[in-house]
C-alpha cells in the first residue's frame, strides 16, 4: 500500500464548519430566525384573510344600505303621488305614512309641508314614530327652494345621526322623511366586529363602535373598507372598520406548536451533526491508526529482512575473510608438496604433513561453501516495480525518526513511474540504510540545519539513479575505498555490514552503488538500477 503521511486536504475546514453548528448560540440564533420567519408569514397571511373578510362584509353591507336608500326614493314618489291626487290632504296620506313608519323603523317621521311663497311654510300632515318629531316646515321650505317639482333634496336633521330627505311635489307642497342613520346601517349584514361610520360631504353623520370588541388591544391596527352608497339623492359614504390585534395575526397555539417543533427539529439536526462529526473524527482516528499500523508493519518487515540479510552478509563476510588465508594455506601446502617432490622428499613425513594441510584446507573450504549455501538460500523475489513508490514509502517511514532528530528529509520523485526489476523489500532496505547513515552523518557533524535529500531520477544510460545526499562532513579519503568492505566500519559500534549489505543487494539486481563526496561537502551515495525492459513493463501492467 501507499503510505501518505499528510492528512487529506480539506478536512480541517469541514471540522470547523461542523463545530460552529454545534455551538448553542448557533442553535438559538437559528431558532429565533425560524420563529421570526414564521411570525412574518403568519401575520401576512392572516392579515390578508382579515382584509378580505372586511372588504366582503363591507361590500354586502354597502349593497344592503344602497337598496334601503333606494326604498326612500320610492316612498317619496308614492307619497307625493298620493298627496297630489287629492285636493286636500286626507286621511289616506296619513294612513300610508303611518304604515311606512311601522314597516320601516329607520324612517321616524313623515311630514307633508305646504309652501306659501313669501310668507313661510306650514305642516299639513305629520306622522311620527316614537323616536321622531315633526319637522320645522321652514327648514324644508329652504331646502326645496329652487328645486323643480319632483326633485328631492338631502338635508341635515337636528337629531344626531339623523338626516332628512325632502321632495318638492309642486309649487305648494313638499314631503319630508326623517331617517335614523343608526337603524339604516343596522341589520344582519352588519358583522359584530365592525365599527361603522356614515359620512356625507359635510362631515361625519354617524359613528357606531363595534358591538364585539377585540379580546386584546396588543398591537392593535384597524383594517378598513370604505365605499360610497349608490344613490342620487342621498350622498352617503360607508366606512367599515375592523380592529386587528396581534393574537389574530399570530395565533398563539400554532405559534407555540411551531416553536416547539422547530426547536426539537433543530436539536435533532444538531445531534445528528454531532453524531456525524464524532463519526468522522472516529473514522479519521481509525485511519490514522491504520496508517501508523501499516508503517509499523512495514518497519517490522524491513527489520526482519535486515536481520536475515545481515546474517547472510555476516556469514558471507566471514567466509570471504576466511577464504583468503585458506587460499594461502592451500596453495602454500600444494607448493610445498611440489618443492618436496622436486627435492626427492616424496612420501616422507614432511610430505604427509603438507598433504594433510591440503586436505584440511579443502575441508575448511567445504564448510564455508555449505555455510554460504545455507544463508544464501533465500530466493530472490524479483518483479517489475515502481521505484518511486518504494522510495516514497521508505521516506515516509524514515521521516518519523528524522523528524524526532530534527533533521529535514526532502524527497524528489519523477512524475512517471520508474519501473525496474527488483525485490521491493530488498531495495527498500538499501534506501532505508542509506537514509539512516546520512542522518547519523549529519548528527555527527553537529549541524543545526541537518538535511538529507533523497532523489530518484533517470540515469545516464538505461537505468535509474537513487541518490541519498547529506550535508554532514563527508567521507574521509582514507575510508572511501574501503567503505563497502564487510566488517569495515567508521562507527565505533558499527559491525561494518550495512554498506556491504547494500552493495550485495544492489548487485543482486544488476545494479551498482557508488559513494563520493558532494561538491558542497557531505556524502553522496548513488544507487544505479537497470530500468525494466519493455517486455517486463508489460508484465507489470498485467499484474
Amino acid at each position, binding site marked *: 500500500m501507499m503510505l501518505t503521511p499528510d492528512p487529506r486536504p480539506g478536512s480541517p475546514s469541514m471540522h470547523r464548519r461542523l463545530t460552529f453548528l454545534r455551538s448553542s448560540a448557533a442553535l438559538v440564533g437559528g431558532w429565533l430566525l425560524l420563529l421570526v420567519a414564521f411570525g412574518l408569514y403568519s401575520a401576512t397571511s392572516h392579515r390578508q384573510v382579515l382584509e378580505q373578510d372586511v372588504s366582503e362584509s363591507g361590500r354586502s353591507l354597502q349593497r344592503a344600505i344602497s337598496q334601503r336608500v333606494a326604498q326612500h326614493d320610492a316612498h317619496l314618489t308614492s307619497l307625493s303621488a298620493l298627496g297630489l291626487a287629492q285636493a286636500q290632504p286626507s286621511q289616506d296620506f296619513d294612513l300610508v305614512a303611518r304604515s311606512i313608519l311601522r314597516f320601516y323603523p329607520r324612517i321616524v317621521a313623515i311630514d307633508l309641508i305646504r309652501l306659501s311663497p313669501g310668507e313661510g311654510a306650514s305642516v299639513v300632515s305629520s306622522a311620527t314614530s316614537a323616536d321622531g318629531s315633526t319637522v320645522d316646515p321652514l327648514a324644508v321650505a329652504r331646502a326645496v327652494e329652487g328645486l323643480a317639482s319632483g326633485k328631492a333634496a338631502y338635508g341635515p336633521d337636528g337629531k344626531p345621526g339623523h338626516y332628512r330627505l325632502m321632495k318638492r311635489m309642486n309649487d305648494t307642497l313638499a314631503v319630508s322623511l326623517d331617517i335614523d342613520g343608526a337603524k339604516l346601517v343596522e341589520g344582519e349584514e352588519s358583522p359584530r366586529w365592525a365599527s361603522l361610520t356614515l359620512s356625507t360631504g359635510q362631515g361625519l353623520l354617524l359613528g357606531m363602535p363595534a358591538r364585539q370588541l377585540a379580546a386584546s388591544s396588543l398591537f392593535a391596527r384597524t383594517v378598513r373598507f370604505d365605499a360610497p352608497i349608490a344613490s342620487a339623492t342621498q350622498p352617503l359614504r360607508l366606512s367599515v372598520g375592523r380592529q386587528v390585534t396581534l393574537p389574530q395575526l399570530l395565533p398563539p397555539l400554532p405559534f407555540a406548536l411551531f416553536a416547539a417543533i422547530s426547536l426539537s427539529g433543530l436539536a435533532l439536526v444538531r445531534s445528528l451533526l454531532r453524531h456525524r462529526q464524532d463519526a468522522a473524527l472516529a473514522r479519521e482516528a481509525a485511519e490514522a491508526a491504520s496508517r501508523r499500523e501499516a508503517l509499523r508493519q512495514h518497519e517490522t518487515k524491513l527489520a526482519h529482512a535486515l536481520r536475515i540479510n545481515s546474517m547472510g552478509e555476516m556469514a558471507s563476510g566471514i567466509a570471504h575473510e576466511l577464504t*583468503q588465508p585458506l587460499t594461502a594455506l592451500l596453495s602454500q601446502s600444494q607448493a610445498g608438496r611440489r618443492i618436496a617432490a622436486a627435492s626427492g622428499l616424496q612420501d616422507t613425513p614432511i610430505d604427509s604433513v603438507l598433504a594433510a594441510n591440503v586436505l584440511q*584446507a579443502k575441508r575448511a573450504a567445504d564448510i564455508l561453501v555449505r555455510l554460504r549455501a545455507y544463508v544464501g538460500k533465500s530466493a530472490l523475489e524479483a518483479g517489475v516495480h515502481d521505484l518511486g513508490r518504494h522510495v516514497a514509502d521508505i521516506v515516509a517511514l524514515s521521516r518519523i525518526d528524522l523528524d524526532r532528530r530534527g533533521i529535514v528529509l526532502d524527497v524528489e520523485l519523477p512524475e512517471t513511474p520508474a519501473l525496474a526489476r527488483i525485490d521491493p523489500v530488498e531495495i527498500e532496505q538499501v534506501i532505508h540504510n542509506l537514509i539512516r547513515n546520512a542522518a547519523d552523518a549529519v548528527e555527527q557533524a553537529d549541524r543545526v540545519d541537518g538535511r538529507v535529500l533523497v532523489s530518484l531520477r533517470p540515469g545516464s544510460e538505461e537505468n535509474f539513479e537513487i541518490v541519498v545526499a547529506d550535508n554532514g562532513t563527508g567521507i574521509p579519503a582514507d575510508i572511501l575505498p574501503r567503505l563497502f568492505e564487510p566488517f569495515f566500519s567508521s562507527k565505533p559500534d558499527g559491525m561494518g555490514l550495512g554498506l556491504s549489505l547494500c552493495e550485495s543487494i544492489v548487485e543482486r539486481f544488476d545494479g551498482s552503488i557508488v559513494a563520493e563526496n558532494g561538491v558542497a561537502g557531505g556524502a553522496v551515495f548513488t544507487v544505479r538500477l537497470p530500468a525494466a525492459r519493455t517486455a517486463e513493463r508489460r508484465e507489470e501492467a498485467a499484474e
Partner: protein
Amino acid sequence: MTMAPVYLVDDDEGVRSALSLLLGTYGIRIETFGDPTAFLARAPKLKPGVLLLDLRMPAITGLQLHEKLGAIGCDWPTIICTGHGDVHACRRAFKAGVVDFLTKPIDEQVLIEALQQASGALDQQAERAEAAQLVAQLTDREREVLDMVGRGWSTREIAETLTLSPRTVDTHRANIAQKLGTTSVAEFARLALIGQAP
C-alpha cells in the same frame, strides 16, 4: 607448451605470495599486484599475459578492472577468482567475457588447467593478430585470390570466376606467397580463415 606470463591482482598479501610460490614450482612466470589501480597504470607496458583477478577488492572490483583493461587495449584472457561463490557475480563475469571463474581457495589442478587454457587463448589471440597483420598487407584483389586458394580452387577456376588470365592469377599467387612468407596451400587456407576475421 610455454606458458604466458600470469599477472595476479589481489589485495591479500598471503594469497599473492602463496600463489607466486605455487606457480613458481610449475615454472610459470608470475607477477603480482596488490593495488588494482597501480596495475592498471602498469599494464600497457607489460608483455601480453593471462590475468588472474580477485573479484572483491577495495575501490574497484575485478570485473571493473577487467573492463578498464579492455578499454585500454589489454584484452588479455582473464580469470576471475572470488571468495564468494556468488552465482550473480559468476553470471556477470561470463557476460563480461572472462575465460573462467574460480572459487577460492583454488585447487592447484583447477588453477593450472584454467591458466593453460587461458594461455592457449592468448596464443590464439596472438596468432590471429599475426595472421591479420599479414593478410592486411595484401591488396583487395590478392585477398580475393587468397580466399579462393584457401577454398581449394585451381588457378583456372579462379581465373574464370574473376575473368582474369591464368597468368595474372599466377602473378597474384606469387605476390601473396611472398607477402605471407609461405607457399603452402594449407597455410594459405589457415591465414585466410583466421586473418580475415572482421
